[in-house]
């Protein structure tokens, strides 16, 4: 019996608030052989998590498993009683959730939670279970395996917490482990550490797993077999290599295409255009939160001495991991957060720090679009009202003319006109993000600050939004300040790229310069962390970066030394951790903030 899991004709039905029932998983059958990892992949709403949860005999509230069979080992899961299911969960089948932060109880130590399932199922005495946990921590490459258990969840980083969640799932030596998008919420640089430790544990223990994800590139590193789902049914099921190289279903091919967004950026503008006044110019920007101290700096400095310049009609990409200050930059430029120092100039005019002191025309010209389309639209207003307000506010358009302009805006973002009567709750994620964009366009701005506009969307939808942004730019002669943690997205749409780390600009240059060697050590880490769409990419990767610990970088933002020193693989102790790094101009055309000279970086193999 080589198959551990056998799912046959699984059907799940969801019941909406109004009592209407819809089938969300129809007739799914697949098997998971022992010692292999099968990936369930698809966009949100494809039923991938529902299927994974049903392997534990569990259906989320409002959902019901209505038919089929799930056999794990020699047990038929669906015919077990609730008590018997409880015995299996955490012992025979365990689950790693997407958000480790939500999976841990903040009031108890990590160790007591990791060994909890072993205690509940009375698998081992506490001391034995703890020894096993330490062993797992070591296998998962966690720093300080003996000591980490006595810490509390908020005292470790997000990537470490996700690995601890894996330890929690593995402590009972389950037959089957369900990974539910375990790296989706992590930064690319952290994701790679987590993936690497997952992979080594899976290989070492010969774990059987089901890996749920929307990211083909991640799945390609971990899974042996991929099942592509769409709207609750299987589109394609094949070995990983075959899916990547020889996909049969058109849907799989569209997923593969969306994973590598087409390059939309125009060629660099002609030389005479460079003479024009920059659209946006930021110099020596210092910003942060909390009361300002005696030195004039805010309590927590988020941005330190950031400068940028944006030519009319070009796009600037800002990338960096979470907490690096990229969203703060957008908020300062939009006037939502007054800067503590430095200037922001728009077409040569210095902008006041807060919205209240800016002129209506200045406000109109800079619009901001947020990441979470769900919270960016007022749920009590219809789409028509949401789009109509900036028209009335900036252009004093009312009545029939307003309705006409709203319809034109919807047309611009490729939405049907009847959507104007709907409320945000009735729209899909991609539609919301389009409305969000349309609201910014209603002001007829010169510059749109896009704060992670595609990060919360599925790959296919995100690719469509990027296409739309590129088209709008051509049509309306817009400029974007495009903020993202995803280098491939930024490369697809931006002419210039700027890399932020711990509130400092560590590299800036044109898109083509970002592809050339050498790079700033942090840019290099970012570039090499983006999963590539081929099997074996993870294994082929050398261990370049030091253990990710975002906290250290943030603490160092204010001090004199290089902000990246704690994680830098090529640091020179005695220089990098003492002196402020100079700005160096590299021959490929970009500026970096680093002590190392160009030839040193090349010699050390950064970017190689």
């Amino acid at each position, binding site marked *: 019996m080589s198959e551990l899991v056998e799912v046959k004709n699984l059907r799940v039905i969801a019941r*909406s*608030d*109004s*009592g*209407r029932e819809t089938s969300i998983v129809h007739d799914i059958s697949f098997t998971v052989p022992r010692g292999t990892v099968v990936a369930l992949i698809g966009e949100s709403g494809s039923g991938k998590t529902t299927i994974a949860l049903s392997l534990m005999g569990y259906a989320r509230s409002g959902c019901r498993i209505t038919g089929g069979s799930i056999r794990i080992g020699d047990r038929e899961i669906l015919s077990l009683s609730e008590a018997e299911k409880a015995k299996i969960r955490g012992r025979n089948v365990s689950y790693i959730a997407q958000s480790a932060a939500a999976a841990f109880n903040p009031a108890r130590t990590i160790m007591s939670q990791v060994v909890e399932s072993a205690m509940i199922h009375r698998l081992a005495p506490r001391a034995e279970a703890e020894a096993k946990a330490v062993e797992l921590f070591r296998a998962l490459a966690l720093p300080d395996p003996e000591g980490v258990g006595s810490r509390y969840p908020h005292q470790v980083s997000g990537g470490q917490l996700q690995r601890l969640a894996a330890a929690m799932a593995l402590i009972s030596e389950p037959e089957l482990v369900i990974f539910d998008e375990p790296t989706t919420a992590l930064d690319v640089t952290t994701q790679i550490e987590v993936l690497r430790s997952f992979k080594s544990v899976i290989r070492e223990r010969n774990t059987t797993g089901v890996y749920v994800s929307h990211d083909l590139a991640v799945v390609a590193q971990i899974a042996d077999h991929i099942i592509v789902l769409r709207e609750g049914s299987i589109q394609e099921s094949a070995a990983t290599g075959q899916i990547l190289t020889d996909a049969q279903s058109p849907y799989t091919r569209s997923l593969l295409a969306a994973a590598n967004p087409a390059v939309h950026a125009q060629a660099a503008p002609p030389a005479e255009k460079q003479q024009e006044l920059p659209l946006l110019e930021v110099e020596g920007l210092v910003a942060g939160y909390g009361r300002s101290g005696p030195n004039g700096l805010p309590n927590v400095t988020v941005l330190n001495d950031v400068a940028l310049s944006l030519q009319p009609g070009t796009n600037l990409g800002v990338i960096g991991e979470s907490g690096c200050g990229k969203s703060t930059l957008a*908020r300062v430029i*939009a*006037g*939502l957060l007054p800067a503590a120092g430095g200037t922001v100039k728009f077409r040569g005019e210095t902008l006041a720090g807060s*919205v209240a002191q*800016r002129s*209506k025309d200045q*406000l109109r010209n800079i*619009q*901001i679009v*947020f*990441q*979470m389309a*769900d*919270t*960016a*639209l*007022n*749920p*009590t*207003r219809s789409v028509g009202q949401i789009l109509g*307000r*900036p028209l009335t*506010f*900036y252009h004093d358009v009312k009545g029939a003319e307003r309705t006409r302009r709203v319809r034109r805006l919807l047309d611009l973002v490729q939405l*049907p*006109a*009847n959507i104007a*009567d*709907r409320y*945000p*709750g*009735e729209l899909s994620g991609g539609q919301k993000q389009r409305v969000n964009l349309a*609201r910014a366009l209603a*002001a007829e701005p010169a510059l749109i600050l896009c704060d992670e506009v595609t990060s919360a969307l599925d790959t296919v939808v995100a690719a469509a939004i990027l296409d739309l942004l590129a088209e709008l730019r051509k049509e309306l002669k817009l400029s974007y300040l495009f903020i993202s943690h995803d280098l491939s997205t930024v490369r697809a749409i931006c002419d210039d790229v700027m890399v932020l780390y711990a509130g400092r600009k560590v590299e800036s240059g044109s898109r083509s310069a970002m592809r050339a060697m050498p790079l700033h050590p942090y840019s290099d880490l970012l570039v090499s962390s983006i999963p590539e769409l081929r099997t074996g990419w993870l294994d082929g990767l050398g261990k370049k970066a030091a253990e990710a610990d975002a906290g250290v970088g943030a603490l160092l933002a204010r001090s004199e030394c290089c902000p990246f020193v704690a994680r830098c693989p090529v640091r020179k102790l005695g220089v990098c951790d003492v002196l402020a790094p100079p700005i160096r101009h590299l021959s490929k055309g970009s500026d970096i903030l680093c002590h190392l000279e160009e030839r040193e970086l090349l010699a050390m193999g950064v970017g190689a």
Partner: protein
Amino acid sequence: MTKHTDTIPETRRRMLGAGSLTISVVGAMCFCIILFWVVIALIGPWLAPYPIGKIVSMDVFTSPSRDYLLGTDYLGRDMMSRIILGARYTVGVSIAAAFIACTIGVALGMISAVLGGWFDTIVSRGIDALIAIPHLMFGLVIIAAIGSSLPVLVGTLAFLYFPGSFRIARALAVNINELDFVQVAKARGEGFFYTVREEILPNMIGPVLADFGLRFVFIVLLLSGLSFLGLGVQPPNADWGALVRENVSGLAYGAPAVIMPSLAIASLTISVNLAIDNLPRRLRDRLP
């Protein structure tokens, strides 16, 4: 063209469909009960068979009879007349006080949450101090000092209950204020009052209404307590709470004089709460 005619009715159906503007049966029933008591309160003087203070019978605590539909009280007064005329005080004073308390509390709460800074600190700490004083004690002191009259009662009750409303409204508004759509409105350059009125208030109306229901019940109970102590509605007039208290000795005989006003209070307070719980979904849960 055909596409248009197809899609518009579809949208309408979505808006009127299940779970949006339909009102549940329980909600409708409760709404009728509330409406009934409001009407009684308004037209009471023309409806009551006897004057409120008139002793109509030598028998006390009688059972319902043809002359006295709800029996008589501890002095032999007609219970039905007293309940009908008491509705004015219970319904009128309590609704007025709850309305004033919620309006002041919600307005101040939203302003504090959005303005923040020293204004928020001063208002919040001042109101925390008010919350620390026991309601009944504070009410007693104010009414004993000024003297009892309807405006004083309404004012005192509203003053006692607006701090709780402020707390809830501020907590809600602080959360909503951080949401992106409010930030977008601010970045657009919208004024303070537009932001509060159009972006924040509609998104907290559900919890605020639920809070109104609870506050209304508390006010009915406090008003009864004050009346019992002789500081509420002055005899021979009486609100329902006072009717219960003054007839409490009839409990041993199972007299309707004590049961009927209790039922009246229960029917009103439970109806208010159930009606708010059963408000159309579209009004209640607007946040994602």
